[in-house]
């Protein structure tokens, strides 16, 4: 009898107070979880956008590098004109109005953060060197696991942070034009004669980086907001590409600057 009564009491349902309390707890839990989930989702969006932007940049820079490698910075045509030129193009078109790629969420390492006992460039002090017995090579890469021990000391800094690609400020895009070597033949005297291709041009049109050859224009990268090419005295080219892309929700803009240095082989 008592057993039956207990059973009936257990099935009496939930009271209004219980429901209210349970709902309140649910609201509190969801209220705490929602911002976390949203920020995770936002971070995911930003990360994806940044990855896409970076992938675009790298793909474009690889394409340009492969092209430029077949050119020459020093060769001239029969009229004495270089088969290569860099000119200043239009003013940069950016989503943010910024002529660099400074991203507030990232900070540069300062000298003090690099820290430690410093030695000047070229100074052998604080350098301990040992030739490991049986050393097969110089490092840990490329199968030479047994190598020399190098200094763990820190070194003086060179350059300035302002010259890093993402900190670099430039107002106008570059226009890069060059000819590539297609192949070569031998003339009657046996001398090789180089067969040069059409002029290839890389320039920014609107927000696209395009490649123009023989009247055909192809988009190499969208979302471009900066393209800069500099020739160095070592006959290399420093190519910087800055892209800006809105995240899927349109709230954030991912900015990415990448730079490569290429040596045209001819």
């Amino acid at each position, binding site marked *: 009898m*008592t*057993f039956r009564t*207990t059973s009936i*009491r*257990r099935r009496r349902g939930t009271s209004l107070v219980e429901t209210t309390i349970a709902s309140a707890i649910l609201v509190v839990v969801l209220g705490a979880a929602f911002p976390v989930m949203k920020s995770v989702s936002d971070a995911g969006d930003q990360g994806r956008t940044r990855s896409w932007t970076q992938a675009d940049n790298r793909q474009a820079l690889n394409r340009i590098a492969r092209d430029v490698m077949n050119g020459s910075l020093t060769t001239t045509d029969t009229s004495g004109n270089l088969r290569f030129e860099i000119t200043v193009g239009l003013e940069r078109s950016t989503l943010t109005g910024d002529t660099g790629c400074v991203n507030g969420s*990232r900070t*540069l*390492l300062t*000298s003090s*953060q*690099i820290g430690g006992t410093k*030695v*000047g*460039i*070229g*100074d*052998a002090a604080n*350098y301990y*060197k040992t*030739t*490991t017995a*049986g*050393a*097969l*090579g*110089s*490092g*840990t*890469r*490329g199968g*030479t696991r047994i190598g*020399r021990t*190098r*200094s*763990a*000391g*820190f*070194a*003086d*800094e*060179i*350059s*300035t*942070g*302002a*010259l*890093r690609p993402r900190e670099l400020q430039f107002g106008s895009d570059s226009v890069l034009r060059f000819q590539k070597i297609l192949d070569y033949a031998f003339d009657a005297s046996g001398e090789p004669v180089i067969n040069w291709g059409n002029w290839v041009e890389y320039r920014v049109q609107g927000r696209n980086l395009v490649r123009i050859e023989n009247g055909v224009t192809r988009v190499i990268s969208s979302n471009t907001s900066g393209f800069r090419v500099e*020739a*160095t*005295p*070592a*006959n*290399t080219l*420093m190519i910087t590409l800055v892209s800006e892309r809105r995240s899927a929700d349109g709230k954030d803009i991912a900015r990415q600057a*990448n*730079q*490569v*240095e*290429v*040596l045209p082989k001819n």
Partner: protein
Amino acid sequence: MKLLRRRSSGTSLVDVVISMGVLVVTAGGLAVSVLSTQKSSGQMAQRDMVRTQALRYVERLLGVPYGVDAAVTATAAEAADFFDDDASMPAGISLMALRTPMNGAGWRFGVSGFEAKGVWEVEINGDLDGNGTLNGIRGTLTPTTGGTTAAGDGASTVTMLSEGRTTLTRIEVFFNGVSVAKTLRSAPVQGT
């Protein structure tokens, strides 16, 4: 009867503590996993930046004139100007002027504003395998051109004929003591 009453009397403190413990362990595991993913993602990004920067140095060192054995060694200021982030470099600089001693420190420097924390070291010398000596293990194949020396046995450490020459130079870039990029460069055929 007593047993049933106790079972229907709600959640005990022990139950709550155990539940919270399970929750904490689960949430902790999740947090560790997320942090670990973030860390490895950051490390990958840094490795990529380091490699790109190392390849810049290699390209620049392949492009600079080879120079001659008698070239005056570059000063620290000239080396800093060569390896910095801008497009300028010292006039008349050559690979031979930038050589570093065998089994000694290369050009060591930090790059201001570089995204990864660490020290660069660039070694440029005729120690082709970088082991700090001109010795190494000679392979068993007989050279088809050039010297007439017999092939090695593939095991003994002997003097390497190709090392210590001014016409063949190793360029190797290290970041925090780890080799990131390496190449060999030979002198131009016609001595320019």
